[in-house]
């Protein structure tokens, strides 16, 4: 392959990759966590580190944040959020189907980052999320039901 000059690459947008785990308890309630470092609740997840693919980052974050292993399955939702405010570059957000937490009592929280977890009906979970991220809960739940991936830039499913 011909190497592209760095000057060419410099013109292209670079983005952050964020991964989220959509997991439910045996009753179908959504697993959400309260981080210590921000006021809103969120999915288990985090940012893709160097050398990781998104699904690998998701498996790592699950293990780190809640101390159990969950299978990282289908991509349920892909969101693309352009740069805004303090977010100086676009973020690509991958929500993976991480199945069912059979026994939430086995969860061991990463004390310095996560202060609590809960398994909640979708609307209650959404109410605890930052408004910007709220739509992702229902979109992910719907994607799992339908067995398909939803592409939802800015949290809006792409019009067809």
């Amino acid at each position, binding site marked *: 392959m011909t190497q592209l000059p760095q000057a060419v690459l410099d013109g292209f947008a*670079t983005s952050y990759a964020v991964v989220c785990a959509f997991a439910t308890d045996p009753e179908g309630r959504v697993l959400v966590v309260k981080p210590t470092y921000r006021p809103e609740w969120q999915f288990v997840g985090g940012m*893709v580190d160097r050398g990781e693919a998104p699904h690998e980052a998701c498996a790592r974050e699950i293990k780190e944040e809640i101390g159990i292993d969950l299978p990282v399955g*289908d991509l349920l939702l892909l969101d693309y959020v352009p*740069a805004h405010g303090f977010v100086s570059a676009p973020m690509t957000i991958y929500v993976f189907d991480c199945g069912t937490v059979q026994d939430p009592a086995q969860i061991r929280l990463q004390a310095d980052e996560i202060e609590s977890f809960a398994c909640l009906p979708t609307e209650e979970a959404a109410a605890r999320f930052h408004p910007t991220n709220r739509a992702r809960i229902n979109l992910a739940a719907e994607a799992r039901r339908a067995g398909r991936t939803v592409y939802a830039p800015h949290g809006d499913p792409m019009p067809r």
Partner: protein
Amino acid sequence: MPPKELTPPDQWLEGRPKHLAAAGALLTDAEGRVLVVKPNYRDHWLFVGGQLDEGETPEQACRREVKEEIGLDVALGELLVVDWTPPTRARLLPLVVFIFDGGTVDPARIRLDREELDEFRFVAVAESLELLSVNGRRRMPVAVDAKRTGNTRYLSVGARP
């Protein structure tokens, strides 16, 4: 009660790794053959598409590239493929590639961007595999299958994890 020691939002992202992103289109003719283009700056053929510019979403970049490269306005359908590839020696950042269903186009209406592209062809999938880059070769059958089944595929280096 406000939580103590909240990290200021502008520090959440400091120093976190970033990646490049590109968007391409699966375009077919009325007989279901797939469109590939030959850039003048590479030895192999490519999907129509290119890298995201600042401020663009993947589908905006895809539509812009289709317009620039073959002169057509297309309405995009489903996202077919999300493929994450690690850095290479020639490209120091990871690259994620999004492939959208660009639908069926009339070859007679194509106006090729002669500055960057030498040629376009509509070919059977099997033939496209002989023309495309290693990455394109992995993505094409997956994209065609995703279009047929209506299921987006998430890949890591061209393979389902």
